[in-house]
């Protein structure tokens, strides 16, 4: 699913964001990525999305070798990923439903099923009543949930969520985490970066990747399928 061997990421200004990262994440695994701000959590997700590329080492995501000259294939790979961006990246001037549909329009999903998936995803994040509201009129927390609905409606093989509960109250945060956690039952791998370490204890079989100053330590807790 995800395999990294001695992956390092060094930015053009010389900053080393990640150093000799080794990972082996299996299908259906639920993984938290934790660490202080600037530790390299988002850089790790950027590598997994093909937004940045390893300066050294090798990285495979869903069997795709992640190197710059594989751009076309990496674009295809992204269709199998459900990303939740820290800045949401919702498309302004569209309703919540349209935003969720946007993530599926170019996938091989029939129109009817696409609309069903979008409505179900909005229902799961508790926003079915806001489906026809323009995203710029939603609260910060609601917009975040639309971004999550867009990611999960695609029924991806891998969900990469960057601080998906960052702006949510405790109840909504638990709901979103439960939603993401339940995807592992569908054999979907979920990686979530978070500061909300108090939520982690609710998911005792989740693996934890501790990131600090570009170095990682993987903590496998409990048995995952």
């Amino acid at each position, binding site marked *: 699913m995800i395999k990294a061997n001695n992956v390092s990421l060094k930015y053009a200004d010389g900053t080393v964001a990640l150093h000799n990262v080794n990972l082996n994440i299996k299908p259906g695994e639920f993984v938290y990525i934790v660490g202080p701000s600037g530790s390299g959590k988002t850089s790790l997700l950027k590598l997994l999305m093909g937004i940045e590329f390893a300066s050294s080492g090798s990285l495979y995501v869903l069997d795709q070798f992640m190197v710059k000259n594989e751009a076309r294939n990496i*674009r295809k*790979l*992204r269709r*199998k990923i459900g*990303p939740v961006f820290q800045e949401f*990246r919702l498309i302004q001037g569209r309703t919540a439903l349209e935003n969720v549909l946007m*993530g599926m*329009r*170019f996938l091989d999903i*029939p129109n009817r099923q696409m609309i069903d998936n979008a409505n179900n995803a909005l229902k799961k994040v508790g926003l079915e009543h806001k489906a026809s509201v323009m995203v710029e009129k939603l609260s910060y927390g609601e917009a975040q949930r639309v971004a999550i609905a867009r990611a999960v409606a695609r029924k991806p093989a891998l969900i990469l969520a960057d601080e998906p509960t960052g702006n949510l109250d405790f109840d909504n945060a638990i709901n979103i985490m439960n939603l993401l956690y339940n995807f592992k039952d569908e054999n979907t791998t979920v990686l979530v970066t978070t500061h909300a370490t108090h939520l982690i204890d609710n998911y005792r079989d989740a693996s934890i990747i501790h990131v600090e100053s570009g170095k990682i330590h993987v903590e496998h807790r409990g048995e995952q399928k």
Partner: protein
Amino acid sequence: MKNAVYFIKESVRIFRSNKLSNIFSFFGTFLILFLLALVVGIWSISSQLTALLKEEAEISAYFKQDIQNTEELLHMIEQIDGVRNVRLVDKEEARSRMEKILGEESGILDLFDENPFEAYFEVKINLEKTDSVFTQISGLNGIDYVRENREVLEQIEGVSKALEALGYLVIAAVSITTLVIISHMIRQGIYQNREQIKTFMLLGAPDNFINFPYILLGFLLTFGGGIAATVLINILINQGYSRLASTLPFIPLPPKSRLSLGLTVFLLSASAALGILGSLFGVSTSKKNN
């Protein structure tokens, strides 16, 4: 096409997002396509005119009025190489022709007590052999003088060739200008929507999906300009033909329906092709970061 409605809605949204600039692009395209139609139309008419006049190339051979046997003279002219047809135009026919040309002004001929026109031979010739035919007819016994209109024909042909060259020039200029206008408009649209495009890329959307609404918009704007230019040029043709028919009836214009249909097909095809090419050029020269 499961996304047909989406693509149309997106194109409309992109148009609205920069409405004023897009409206100017539409009018700019419309005006230059109209200019193109005008030049091509005039070129087409002048070519037709030259071709018709060439076919009708003739010289008039006036004979001494005391000559008795015009049939013999006519037969001799017929034998000359380069002569296609000869017929005698008698005085009455010469007058009635002039009456037709003068139209409402033909009353002026009533001022003459006698028919002032002379009978003559109307000799249709091959234009290339004008010199030889002219010399041979002039040398025939009984021929008073010969009049040819080669200078006029050559001038018309010269104008026609100049218009043809101008036509090619205008086609090239219009094509380049349209490509620049449309591609610039597309690049502007892409720049304004760069964040949305980046999101689509991050979600894995293929380039065709991202680009299609922009290409559709460029096509629709240019084709719309083409339709508007077609309507205007057809109005102009209708008005121009009725005015020319009443004021200059002797000018041999091509059939109105043929000119109109030809220009309509040309404008619609040219605008469609330029719209697609301009949009593709705009899309391919826009910077999009992965």
